[in-house]
């Protein structure tokens, strides 16, 4: 009975104390971001290039069958680097949501060859203005943190809209992008406000925009830069 009362009293104390501990929680350095912390960041981005559907210019024959090839095309968007900016907020110490924008100016090239009248092979080019506006959910593996909590692995999944402006900026085409990445944040400081390095690699699945293939394509992607915690 006496032991039972002690347990009850201890539980009551914990129940009373615990909220006070949470409400009084302050960052004391070396810990993980808490719910409500804000993270801003930016840096570079790299995305693998991809081939675009490349039709052959063809004429009709009298029979209606077996088309006559005028010339061939071979189009692609070359691999590109760009910049990205992100803003996020921690919901808990391990989960955050963020929104961002990526910008790049990839080159689209179309190789023209096999002309029936022997026109010289030519590569026609243009520069796209590529924007991705997206949102992500990040899960931080605080339990796997290293270097005293400075290095924190995370995974991110999200999606958004791709907007690509063709050269001349008079034609914009939109599409969808879904990404999944795995990365690492390495905090350089230990204060409540601190700066860190962030790197992630993964894939982006894009559909539409300057890519006429509606089936979508999955491309390797890498992001890296600085990140600031507030």
């Amino acid at each position, binding site marked *: 009975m006496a032991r039972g009362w002690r347990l009850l009293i201890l539980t009551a104390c914990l129940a009373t104390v615990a909220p006070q501990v949470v409400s009084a929680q302050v960052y004391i350095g070396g810990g993980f971001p808490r719910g409500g912390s804000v993270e801003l960041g930016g840096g570079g981005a790299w995305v693998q290039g991809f081939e*675009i559907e490349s039709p052959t210019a*063809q004429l*009709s024959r009298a029979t209606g069958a077996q088309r006559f090839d005028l*010339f061939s095309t071979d189009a692609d968007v070359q691999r590109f680097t760009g910049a990205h900016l992100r803003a996020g907020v921690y919901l808990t110490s391990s989960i955050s949501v963020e929104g961002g924008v990526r910008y790049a100016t990839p080159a689209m090239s179309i190789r023209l060859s096999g002309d029936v009248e022997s026109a010289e092979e030519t590569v*026609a080019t243009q520069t796209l203005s590529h924007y991705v506006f997206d949102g992500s959910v990040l899960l931080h593996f605080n339990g796997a943190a290293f270097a005293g909590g400075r290095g924190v692995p995370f995974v991110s999944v999200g999606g958004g809209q791709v907007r690509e402006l*063709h050269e001349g900026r*008079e034609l914009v085409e939109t599409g969808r992008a879904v990404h999944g990445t795995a990365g690492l944040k390495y905090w350089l400081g230990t204060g409540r406000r601190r700066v860190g390095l962030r790197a992630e690699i993964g894939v982006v699945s894009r559909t539409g925009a300057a890519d006429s293939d509606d089936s979508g394509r999955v491309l390797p992607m890498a992001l890296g830069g600085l990140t600031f915690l507030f």
Partner: protein
Amino acid sequence: MNPVKAGPLVLVLLLSVLVAPAYAYLKLGVRVGTRTVSLQWNAFPIRYFITNRGAPGVDSAQFESAITRAFSTWNAVETSETSSQLVGFTAASPTSGDGMSVLGFASRPDLERVLAATNFIIDVTTGEIVESDIFFNTAFSWSVSPAGETGRHDLESIALHEIGHLLGLGHSAIGETEVVPGGRRVLAAEAVMFPIAFSPGSIADRTLKADDIAGLTDIYPNPATRRTRGSISGRVTKNGAGVLGAHVVAFNTRTSALVGGFTLSDDGSFTIAGLEAGPHVLRVEPLDDAEVDSFLDASMNVDLNFRVRFHDRVVVVPQGGGTRGVELRVVPK
């Protein structure tokens, strides 16, 4: 040798209507002062008559059906607004110039290379087409068989071409030919408005191609089309000077549509309109796949001395707008 679908277009003169050169581009035009005005109908439906005479293998009812199908094909182009109405049969000649637009057979053995031809009466102050007649030459064998008929020209295919003229379209140069004894043979074409017919028995030209549709859309766009279609304009130059009579083809790498145009002035300027929005590649070639006067006025000093080449930039056509200032530099052969 394949016969041509239409000889040089004849402008019939009546009263105040004057002779005007038939500049063939995607559109026919008439010179009014210092500018060229497109030929076009201003009132729809276009009311037409069918002659009550048949030809070997084609009676008047079959003729009427083939003509109606051909008109319907043009009227069905979603990006443009045209309509037509058969008034009835007539004994009038399809070359009469009597205020009625008449389509029918005519015996013209003197035109040994002309399958059919379209005549106009126009108001040269406005470019309005007042009357247009089409004759089909009974010196050739005709067929209305659904699958075509060996040794006979498909009436619906040729009618589709001639009605394109009736609507104001000139000849297209999107085709490849080879020289054979006595003329040229068509290897392939991607426009019903190509001036040389496929061999007898072919029904390939019963279907409009992108170039035909772009041309019609340029003349008779519907309101939605004005917001969605665009154009490319620029110059073709050789050693810094304009090239007259060059054939420029725009290839839409999204839709595979081929649409052509010509440089129509000494400064080498061209405009290709009625294009779907999207990236295009450009190819320029001399006008050497048919007689030059099938396309342009014979008095024009057309330059054929340059090599076929591609433009080294992707040209993007915006919706409802135009990309200007494209320069295609060619070199002599």
